[in-house]
């Protein structure tokens, strides 16, 4: 058997994001479909499955944060340290909310 590895993604409930569930080995898409249903779908544990041949997945792993530009991050970056430093330079304190 010339087997292909298929990655299986599972959606637990409609509207939720698909998550990687595991992988299966199957000679073609029809077998992959059956094995995926059997292992991840037919007991009510999934609303939907995605089955993708592993070769179709383009992996990226070589991340280098050359300039430490953490402000590029979509989840923002922490201001706490920078605020503290700025307040120290200005001689003010976050613990004095009345502005004295």
């Amino acid at each position, binding site marked *: 058997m010339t087997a292909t590895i298929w990655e299986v993604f599972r959606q637990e409930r409609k509207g939720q994001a698909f998550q990687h569930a595991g992988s299966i*080995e*199957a000679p*073609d898409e*029809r*077998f992959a479909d*059956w*094995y995926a249903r059997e292992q991840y779908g037919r007991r009510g544990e999934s609303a939907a499955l995605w089955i993708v041949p592993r070769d179709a997945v383009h992996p990226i792993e070589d991340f280098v944060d050359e300039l430490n530009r953490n402000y590029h991050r979509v989840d923002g970056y922490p201001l706490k340290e920078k605020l503290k430093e700025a307040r120290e330079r200005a001689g003010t304190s976050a613990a004095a909310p009345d502005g004295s």
Partner: protein
Amino acid sequence: MVSPMLRNVSEQGRAQLLLGIADDELILGWRDSEWTGVAPFLEEDVAFSSIAQNEIGHARALYELAARDLGTTADELAFDRRPAEYRCAQLVELRLPGWEHTIARHCLYEAADAERLARLIASDDPEVAGLAAKIDREEAYHRMHADMWFDRLSGEPRFQAALEELRPLATAIADPELRNGHTPDLAELLEVMTEVRRSQPPGTTW
């Protein structure tokens, strides 16, 4: 080809009808389970073991319904009868030599079983029709599995030879009238299947 036995369930002794199907499912499930751990590849091992377990589950449900009619238990029907009292077809009894024969039997059985289940679903006995419909929902997966293997192996001469060899035995699945005695393989299978149960005195609680 509608057998008189299936045409009118209520008049022909529902328990006897159920027993024939239950025995087919139990014995085939047992034979299929012989592939657990030795199937051609791992995913198929999981798949075929699951199919085997489904068949034995169907047998249990059918035995339970028959047991109610006969005033006994599913376990006693499944394990405590003499080989001659089993009503299964010869097709499910055979200890087959290889994977191509196993898939050939699987394809032939599923096709005949679909025909049988369709008639039971149309039965005027709501318990039989309901159980048949429930079983059929799981058998749909088995048919998909059999079909994909059929298409994959259909160009293989060994598979074609196995199909031709077993085909004459398949007619007895949908028509109990054609069941005529048992193969020696059945007694051998029952010997192994009931060994643990027979090791303790009757009435033992497991």
